[in-house]
């Protein structure tokens, strides 16, 4: 078991609020990834869960038990540090045995368990070495093995792959995900790398400036970003975000901006300042005269090609649209000359709308029933 409940957790350092009022439930067996840019408070949050930092306010529960004031050694958690924190004076075998020997486990069980986990992560041949005699990848495995040696309620990991090279990172990522499936245990995993988050998580908690920006499955975060920040953070190349105005004309919702015109669906709405988000892969490029360049629904952006970047698998074409630079990915067979006038099209379901002032996602609800309490001029769009 390992169900973690964080309630209104905050932590400040002097004048910096590193973690700001976070409430979050990690269900038993979840692989929760705490994702966010550097300095957003991921490590601080993880250390509070581990019991290494006291929260300024808020509470923590593990399997229904309030552990806010419980010292870390009684919390029954295991953690992999970014530095791995392998005890440098102890051999790998002794490092693995440490969590067991401090609990006075009998010697026979210790050596059996050490052998088991060493096999599990494929480090049986390294048991007699000291940490300094290991490569980065081997150290990482030993650190994971040391966490596995007990059966803790949850595994905490702070950017465990960030010191590995790209190839090893990909391989280890898959191994960790497989390990999670095999153990069925709760994982709380910190990373700033969205690829790690997307590939491993069952649930992602996106942090920004110490606040929770969005919690959801990788699909939800990618397909329905809850805020401008979420839309901009997830995805590479980055989502195009441009200021626009939401309004309705002739019974249809429209989005307008210099060089941008979008007709969404039937409905009425008061005017509203918004941010329009479109992912580069959801845009297509057309020559101005072509049939596809004059769609009846969705968005059409008029621009000029400024730069083509070869990404290998495809190309990223940067176009000037009004004051914005919009990225579009398209097959490399398409040839676009710099300076060419183009039309960029996107279908309605791929347009993300965000309120300009709050940055939160706007979703269309079907015509509000007449009995609704809302004031008559309340927009049908909800935050």
């Amino acid at each position, binding site marked *: 078991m390992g169900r973690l409940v964080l309630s209104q957790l905050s932590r400040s350092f002097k004048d910096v609020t590193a973690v700001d009022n976070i409430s979050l439930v990690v269900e038993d067996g979840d692989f929760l990834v705490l994702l966010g840019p550097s300095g957003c408070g991921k490590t601080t949050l993880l*250390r509070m869960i581990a019991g290494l930092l006291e929260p300024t306010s808020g509470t923590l529960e593990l399997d229904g038990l309030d552990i806010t004031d419980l010292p*870390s*050694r009684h919390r029954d958690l295991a953690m992999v540090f970014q530095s791995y*924190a392998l*005890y*440098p*004076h102890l051999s790998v075998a002794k490092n693995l045995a*440490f969590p067991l020997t*401090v609990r006075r486990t009998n010697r026979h069980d210790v050596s059996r368990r050490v052998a088991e986990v060493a096999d599990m992560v494929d480090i049986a041949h390294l048991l007699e070495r000291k940490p*300094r005699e290991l490569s980065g990848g081997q150290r990482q495995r030993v650190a994971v093995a040391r966490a596995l040696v007990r059966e803790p309620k949850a595994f905490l990991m702070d950017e465990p792959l960030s010191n590995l090279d790209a190839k090893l990172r990909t391989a280890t990522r898959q191994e960790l995900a497989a390990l999670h499936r095999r153990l069925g245990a709760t994982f709380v995993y910190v990373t700033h790398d969205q690829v790690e988050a997307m590939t491993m998580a069952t649930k992602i908690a996106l942090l920004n400036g110490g606040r929770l920006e969005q919690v959801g499955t990788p699909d939800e975060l990618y397909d329905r970003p809850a805020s401008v920040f979420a839309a901009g953070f997830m995805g590479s190349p980055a989502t195009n975000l441009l200021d626009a105005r939401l309004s309705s004309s002739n019974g249809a919702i429209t989005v307008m901006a210099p060089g941008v015109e979008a007709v969404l669906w039937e409905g009425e709405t008061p005017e509203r300042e918004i941010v329009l988000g479109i992912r580069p892969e959801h845009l297509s490029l057309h020559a101005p005269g072509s049939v596809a360049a004059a769609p009846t629904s969705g968005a059409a952006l008029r621009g000029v090609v400024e730069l083509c970047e070869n990404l290998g698998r495809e190309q990223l074409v940067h176009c000037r649209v009004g004051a914005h630079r919009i990225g579009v990915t398209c097959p490399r067979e398409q040839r676009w000359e710099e300076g060419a006038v183009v039309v960029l099209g996107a279908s309605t379901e791929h347009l993300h709308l965000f309120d300009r002032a709050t940055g939160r996602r706007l979703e269309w609800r079907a015509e509000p029933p007449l009995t609704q309490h809302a004031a008559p001029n309340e927009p049908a769009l909800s935050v």
Partner: protein
Amino acid sequence: MFTEVQGPTTTAAAAVVVGPAGPRARRRPRSAWLPYLYILPAVALLLVWTYWPLVQTAGLSLQDWNLIPTKPKTFVGVEKYQKVLSLPELHQALANTVAYILAFLGISVALPVLFALLSRRVQGRARTFYQALIFVPFLVTPVATSAVWRWLFAPESGTIPAIATTLGTPMGNIFRDPDSSMLSIVVIVGWQMLGFGVLVVSAGLAGISPDYSAAASIDGASQRQITWRIVLPLLSPSLVFLALMTILLSAQWTYPIIDLVTQGGPGNSSTNIYYLLYQFGFRNFDAGLSSAAGMLFFAGFGIVAVIFVELSEKLSFHDN
């Protein structure tokens, strides 16, 4: 027909590689003696002030000479060594030196470890202040230290005897009492050396990543287990260094205090080997005897130093 695609190692690239190697190769002979020139000043100072006197001392230890430049030196072989080894003063001084070293190991190694571990929870400015407080005595010159402590212990007007009298245990002149003269030296020198120990131990602790203690506490270790199984082993290289420094330097640090406070007395009760060596040479004017004693101590401390260096090699781990 297939043609093979060539790698980029064609003439142009090769030329770039060859280019810079040319001038460097030509410069090498001229720079060969330069590194030696750089270390020359340091080597010269060491030769003039350390190794040449050492050679001269070795020479003097085989001769009989009373330090008067006009008097001839006579070669006497190992006679001075035989004599110095049979002197009861030497045995007393050696025993005292060992006792001093043991006392100082306690004061400048064990106590600082205790202080540092206990003060781990003091943070920020308070910590700096606390460390400065303990370190300052180390910066006071021995002469001033001796003067202050002599006043403090003065039998008639001193603060400490006054307090002792109030508490009903009058203490007399501790510098003139064979039972307490050595203790008084230990207190005064210990007061100075404690700061050095605290400094080295604090630096050693600061060099240990806090991640290890954090990891150990999540692994389930108690504070006590963390101290004994993680912190102290990781601190051991610093402790070996500190112990070596204490052994090698305590005899020298004690010397000025002995000279100023007890002159080794009463009846050699507080003397140590360096003070004895000084007395042989400059009180009894027996350069041969003094040099022979000096050579013996040099060899003895040399062996201790080698043992400790070996030990610290064994204990050190590259923490990264």
